[in-house]
């Protein structure tokens, strides 16, 4: 569907938002972003997810106005902002390095955007108190940046970006420098904050768990600097568009095979019944079946049946909260994941059978 038509629909449904049309960005001969067409609905929390070097940060910088696209247009609420300078866009951005001004205090950092707009001192003070309350740092206004911990700096950077009530809130891997526990707390906090403020937010991350936790919508970008899939976290997890997405989001068993007509595929001589096939796949085409480890159940011993794969247990990884069983099925490996409660009675070296429910087998082209 052409994007212009999509926008017409979207305006009706979502009250507009941000549109990227055919965005292309090149640095010299290096392509950073290719053919990106995106709609970011108003008030949503969107994650740009991808491995490092996939162009997700460049895309965010293009939206912020810190880079100009080599081609394409950026529209906000039907207004072309492609050529607008960063300081005229009225967006808030949190940088990976946080980029807090070291010569200013916490309060001065937060009110920077208000003071350069020549807002009255009393208004600045009130807004500052409000924001410090919001990020739970009351009484920190007079502190110097060097006197804060990592998590506190994080909050100051967020408060500073929110001071002008931005039209768009952009975050470039702001949590990557924090330790695991604090990061999870901040993810939740940031998500709740966004809910409360209802502000359109874009977060760049390479952490799929972070993206799954926080976003309404995930934009998966690949090493080819293109967008691979856009959808809700569960949609993308359950129905990955291609092998890259299936592999990048969580673990997946990717089994190469061919389509043998109907709802059947052949994987290493085993005939499997799968869920729906993509329309483009015809009989004899090479395909990949993606199936999540938690959808596969393992039973002890050799069992015959539809979608049953026999093999030998090569490894059992029991980490307490979950159990992973590695099966060697005549040349290809299958990983199954189960909870301790439903743990099958198998040990390393035992023969076992993996049961693949047809509805969980997602067929991907090649």
């Amino acid at each position, binding site marked *: 569907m052409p994007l212009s038509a999509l926008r017409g629909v979207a305006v009706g449904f979502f009250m507009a938002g941000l549109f990227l049309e055919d965005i292309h960005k090149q640095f010299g001969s290096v392509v950073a972003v290719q053919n990106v067409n995106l709609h970011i609905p108003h008030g949503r929390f969107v994650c740009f997810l991808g491995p490092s070097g996939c162009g997700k940060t460049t895309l965010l910088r293009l939206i912020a106005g810190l880079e100009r696209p080599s081609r394409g247009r950026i529209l906000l609420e039907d207004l072309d902002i492609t050529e607008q300078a960063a300081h005229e866009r009225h967006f*808030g951005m949190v940088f990976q390095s946080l980029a807090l001004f070291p010569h200013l205090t916490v309060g001065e950092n937060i009110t920077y955007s208000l003071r350069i707009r020549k807002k009255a001192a009393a208004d600045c003070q009130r807004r500052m108190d409000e924001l410090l309350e919001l990020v739970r740092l009351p009484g920190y206004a007079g502190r110097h940046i060097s006197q804060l911990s990592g998590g506190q700096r994080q909050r100051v950077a967020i408060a500073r970006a929110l001071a*002008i009530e931005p039209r768009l809130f952009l975050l470039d891997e702001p949590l990557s420098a924090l330790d695991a526990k604090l990061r999870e707390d901040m993810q939740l906090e940031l998500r709740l904050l966004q809910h409360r403020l209802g502000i359109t937010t874009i977060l760049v991350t390479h952490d799929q768990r972070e993206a799954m936790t926080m976003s309404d919508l995930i934009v998966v970008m690949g090493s080819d600097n293109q967008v691979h899939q856009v959808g809700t976290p569960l949609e993308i997890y359950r129905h990955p568009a291609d092998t890259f997405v299936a592999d990048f989001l969580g673990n997946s068993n990717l089994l190469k095979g061919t389509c043998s007509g109907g709802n059947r595929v052949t994987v290493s001589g085993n005939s499997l019944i799968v869920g729906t096939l993509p329309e483009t796949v015809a009989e004899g085409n090479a395909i990949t079946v993606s199936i999540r480890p938690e959808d596969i159940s393992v039973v002890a011993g050799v069992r015959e049946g539809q979608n049953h794969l026999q093999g030998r247990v090569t490894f059992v990884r029991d980490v307490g909260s979950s159990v992973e069983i590695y099966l060697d099925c005549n040349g290809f490996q299958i990983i199954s994941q189960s909870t301790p409660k439903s743990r099958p009675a198998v040990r390393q070296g035992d023969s076992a059978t993996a049961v693949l429910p047809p509805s969980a087998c997602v067929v991907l082209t090649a």
Partner: protein
Amino acid sequence: MIGDNPIGVRAHLPILYPAVMLVVFFVIPFGIMLAVSFFQREPGGFYTTDFSIDNYASLFTALFGRVLAFSIFISAFCAAICVAVGFPFTYFITRMRRKAQVVWLVILVSVLSLSAVIVAFAWSLLLSQTAGISNFFVWLGLMEAPASWSPGFWALTCGMCYIAFPYTVLVLYPPLSRLDPHLPEAAQTLGASPVTTFFTVVVGSLRSAIVATLIMVFAFTLGTYLIPTILGRPQHWTLSVLITDEAIYRSNLPFAAAMSVFFMIVSLALVGLTMLVGKGERTADR
């Protein structure tokens, strides 16, 4: 451990060498100069050992006061010009590609290889009536007739700034190249125009580097002797000229020494005051 105070004689050994050098080449000569400043001049001879404050007493003349004030003024003025021009200049260099940065820095360093004599005569020629750039301006039609701009106050300023400028850039380069490029970008996303960003964030976050550079250039230009004699008129002669005059041509070493000591005390006091003001501003921020 780094940051801990070293304990025992052995731990202090590494600083012994610089300490000895400092004493031999700095403390002892200064001690001699300090001693000589209290000696008595012997007319027709050298000096005799004595302890008199006559040399210091005879400092308090209108001429000395005027020359001292001018020396301090011209050095401060040149330091201000050098930093005002050098700071944005260095900022733009640090934003260039690596290769271009190296080219600019090599050009600047090569300027340092020119001796003050060459620089002074080059400027005096460049600003002269017969062969100077005013002839070029006449040819362009900007001026009626060629003018003589050297010697004079502005010729002196040009010469001194030319000598001090490469040092200014070299001192400013490290802190400016360490500046997080995300800082100016953050300011822009917060609504600051490029000019506002430059003054509020780039200048603001490097204030201590700017003060340090001002002091460095000020101290560096205080000692200029040659440039004022070539590019300045007698009223533009700095204290260094006066001291040389007294020491070499009038053989009055005790008086020259007294002038030097007094000059040093005044400049140290000024530098200290500047640092104190800078520090006060920072604590006021807290």
